[in-house]
């Protein structure tokens, strides 16, 4: 069960906003996290607490293929991102590195910055504890659920390769 406060954004939060290119040579996730969102929300890094949830409207993560974007979000302590829709490369990258994403327009509409959310990933249940409301996110395709259960793409590939050998 994930639990945290909401940081809310609008449409088209791009990967340059999530982590500017000037930090792409940084390999430590914790260092990336120190610059997460800095060009659009300088206070995010000071406000964010472990477990918090980013909520955004549509096309979250559009732009570059940089995997540093979901890495920066995950290392900042954010437990999951809820949006109306995600850009596809970001979606894939987030699943690969183990940052959960949920698509749910109703939850986005029914949530404001600072609300406290509780999220059950397996069922896709999103509870807004501040407002006493509940929403259900779109389920993942089966193949993606396998990737998530394995702990990301590298683990999934490792497991498949070692099963093949045994």
């Amino acid at each position, binding site marked *: 069960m994930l639990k945290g406060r909401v940081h809310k954004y609008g449409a088209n939060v791009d990967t340059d906003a999530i982590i500017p290119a000037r930090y792409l040579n940084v390999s430590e996730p914790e260092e990336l996290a120190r610059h997460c969102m800095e060009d659009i929300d300088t206070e995010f890094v000071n406000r964010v607490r472990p477990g918090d949830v980013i909520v955004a409207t549509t096309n979250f993560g559009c732009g570059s*293929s940089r995997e540093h974007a979901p890495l920066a979000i995950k290392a900042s302590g954010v437990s999951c991102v809820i949006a109306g829709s995600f850009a596809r490369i970001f979606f894939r990258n987030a699943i690969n590195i183990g940052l959960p994403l949920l698509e749910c327009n109703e939850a986005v509409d029914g949530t404001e910055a600072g609300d406290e959310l509780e999220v059950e990933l397996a069922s896709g249940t999103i509870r807004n504890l501040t407002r006493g409301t509940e929403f259900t996110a779109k389920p993942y395709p089966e193949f993606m659920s396998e990737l998530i259960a394995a702990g990301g793409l590298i683990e999934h590939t490792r497991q498949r390769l070692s099963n093949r050998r045994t």
Partner: protein
Amino acid sequence: MGKTLAEKILSEKSGTEARAGDIVVAQVDLGFIQDTTGPLTVRQFREAGFRKVSGSLRTAVFLDHAVPSPNRELANDHLFLREFVRDTDCFFSDVGGGISHQLVAESLARPGDLIIGSDSHTVTAGGLGAFACGMGSTDVAVIFHLGKTWLRVPESIGVSVSGQFPEVVSGKDLILHLIGLIGADGATYQSLEFGGESVSRMSVSQRLTVANMAIEAGAKVGLFPADDITQEYLAAQGRAGDYRPLFPDEDAAYVRTVAINAARLEPMVARPHTVDNVVPARELKGTKIQQVYIGTCTNGRLEDIEVAARILKGKKRHPETRLMVLPASRAVLQAAIAAGFIETLLQAGAVILPPGCGACLGLHQGVLGDGENCLTTANRNFKGRMGNSEAFVYLGSPATAAASAITGEITDPREFR
């Protein structure tokens, strides 16, 4: 029921009857990385315990995003990638060779190929009829080892272009118009497939420009048919044998069709800070521009530099407007020198930058100052994109960029016919 280009290519690569919505495991023909996302690919490759690059696909490493290196950290990333190349025998392009997407088009991509790069503008090779798609570092690490990847077969949007392009209106204006029409997420998870009688006359250079920006509408891939023009282009690169014709079936199913009459297009500009914030260039007359940037994987080809040189011939840049030109590859630079375009641009007051990504992603070579406006032929105008969140980036064609360099403000290039 017939197949779209996406369904055709993914059927072949997966050995299944791939239909939109299916998830397939497909053989990859070319996998590549570049110097900002590549180091993470290599770290993930090693973290996974992989030692060998699969022999079933071609692999490539391009140093293009920060070349020559602007600082110690990026120079060390270059060292790290050169060492990986020595260990693995990948195709390698070092500093000065050019932008990955241009080099892929010039020497590696074939119609019908499945190409995956750790860069979102990998879609560029769709201009040659390749299913070319960007992914993250980890996906490419696994592709380097396994030679295959999983893909959801995308639904396709059919974009049919008819009519004659007016003079100085180009593929860049077409794709900006389309993104303005369908929005920055108008094709998310989908394939944008271009066809129609105008497309059958469009040069490969322009097709690459259009395909390059498919990602700016969220598309997984931007696909063109492979036809006589593709054949001529490949033959001119000394790759006649790489050609094969490739067209969608006539009864292919599209989730949506968009018809565009090219004859009614005009020079377009995307305003800050989203690519779908598009208006005709003439509506922005009076917007002062401090820097004009001509190049990048979107518009750094010989045809683009020629358009700019023709407009700037015998003229000077505006004294308050810096003009920078960066050819997309060494071959483009050499051809532009041989044709006299570089001399023309230098006489007009241009700075010529080395082949590479330059300031497009804000690392070096023309980072903007606070409050400055830049008109670039690149593909992204996000806040902070050119290295400063207090600056403003406008996107336009090489013709619009050249005309604006002369006047110092956003200018419809038809004024310079």
